[in-house]
């Protein structure tokens, strides 16, 4: 007869940079259920739309999460622009795309490092983060900030990039691409890594849809859905196909993210090749009136921004549904049947971003 016990996991845990708590129901060493509890970093940002007008709120939206900050700014601005019917200049659309793809590279490299750290693979962790610094240096050069960039604004972008900067970005992604080779080989072929990732935390295609998973978790279960295909910002002019894997295990999720890194390099290169000259923003007149659901693809998956305005400076309601919110039910399903020792690693494979989830 297996012994049933409940093991609390978190909130402060060495693997997680952020506090999240799970009550794991165990039978001996096997997890049979998990109850997530969140709320440690809930700030109530959505409520702040009543105190900040819709142009100022961009800065709050960017600070929902430090990792996907650029994307949150973009999603919010695109939603407001849709409500107000603003046509963003072409150069601004391309600049946004370049920055958002750069932040995807930085986010995925960060995740690879954390995954390696969770396995105790210290040197791989350090190597991933060393490569990530090159992208952060480019953010520093082009926007003046490493983590929070504040480049998006309603009606366009605030900063322009000159041709030297664009050349530097190309140089940086070429450097990373070259140096990524051994990292990719280690993640994909190393025996130790494979033994931790292969076959663990399987999410079937049916479950992925039924549990509403998003982003790389959804694509690693064989569903070809990438919100970038909708063609917001400049994605409509660029060529890309969603990257999928069929297995649905941790290894597949890792593979999808590694391939997306290289996809982002290609997208940045293509966008820099096609970027037109021209103005970077248009003046914004009037106040938003109406509502819109905007879908964009964040590094962690599809995020939804809902904006509702009634013709005043202050929005009635802003809501964001972030990818981690929809990946938590999938995580609970993945955890069932795994060993206690695999729990930290499985939590990492959905790339949790708790401050996004709780806002």
């Amino acid at each position, binding site marked *: 007869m297996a012994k049933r016990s409940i093991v609390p996991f978190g909130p402060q845990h060495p693997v997680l940079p952020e506090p999240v708590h799970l009550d794991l129901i165990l039978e001996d060493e096997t997890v049979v259920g998990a109850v997530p509890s969140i709320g440690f970093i809930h700030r109530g940002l959505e409520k702040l739309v009543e105190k900040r007008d819709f142009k100022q709120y961009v800065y709050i939206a960017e600070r929902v999460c430090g990792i996907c900050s650029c994307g949150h700014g973009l999603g919010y601005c695109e939603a407001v622009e849709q409500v107000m019917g603003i046509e963003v200049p072409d150069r601004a659309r391309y600049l946004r795309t370049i920055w958002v793809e750069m932040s995807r590279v930085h986010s995925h490299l960060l995740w690879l490092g954390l995954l390696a750290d969770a396995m105790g693979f210290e040197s791989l962790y350090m190597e991933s983060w060393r490569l990530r610094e090159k992208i952060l240096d480019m953010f520093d050069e082009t926007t003046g900030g490493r983590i929070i960039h504040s480049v998006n604004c309603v009606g366009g972008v605030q900063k322009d990039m000159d041709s030297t900067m664009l050349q530097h970005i190309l140089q940086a992604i070429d450097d990373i691409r070259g140096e990524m080779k051994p990292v990719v080989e280690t993640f994909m072929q190393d025996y130790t890594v494979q033994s931790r990732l292969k076959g663990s935390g399987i999410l079937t295609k049916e479950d992925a849809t039924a549990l509403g998973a998003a982003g790389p978790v959804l694509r690693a279960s064989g569903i070809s859905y990438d919100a970038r295909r909708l063609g917001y910002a400049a994605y409509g002019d660029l060529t890309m196909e969603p990257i999928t894997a069929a297995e649905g295990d941790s290894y597949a999720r890792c593979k999808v993210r590694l391939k997306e890194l290289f996809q982002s390099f290609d997208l940045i290169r293509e966008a820099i090749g096609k970027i037109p000259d021209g103005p970077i923003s248009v003046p914004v007149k009037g106040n938003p009136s109406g509502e819109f659901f905007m879908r964009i693809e964040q590094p962690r998956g599809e995020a939804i921004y809902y904006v509702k305005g009634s013709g005043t400076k202050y929005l009635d309601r802003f809501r964001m549904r972030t990818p981690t919110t929809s990946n938590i039910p999938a995580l609970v399903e993945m955890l069932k049947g795994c060993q206690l020792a695999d729990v930290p690693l499985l939590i990492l494979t959905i790339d949790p971003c708790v*401050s996004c989830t709780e806002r």
Partner: protein
Amino acid sequence: MNKVSKSPWLLHYDASSCNGCDIEVLDCLTPKYDIERFGIINTGDPFQADILLITGGVNSQTERVVKQLYSQMPEPKVVVAVGICACTGGIFKECYNIKGGIDTVIPVDVYVPGCAARPESIIDGVMKALKVLDEKQKAMKEDRR
């Protein structure tokens, strides 16, 4: 500072930050900034930590945790508030679920402002914290005499 008198261990806790400062704190440990060259190690265990790095403002959820972590650390201990949210509440100050900076809950010795605080300034803050740690150590020794 010419000499570091101790190899201090760090404990990092995210009170309610946006992640930005957290990844910068982690960044300090990685090859480019490499805080380990000062003999500093990031530990997950409050019982072995000398310096508590806190990011983000405090809410009633994390208040307990912050107090508990602080009480579990051995004397002498130093608290560093990283980022403007940890210093004053920052951009989130007016949110309904934010009480304010870390100093509303536990005493803070070093403030590192910035949104997000850059690794250079975090390292600088930790070095300042070391000085405070030295002073506290000296004061404790004198008390014992």
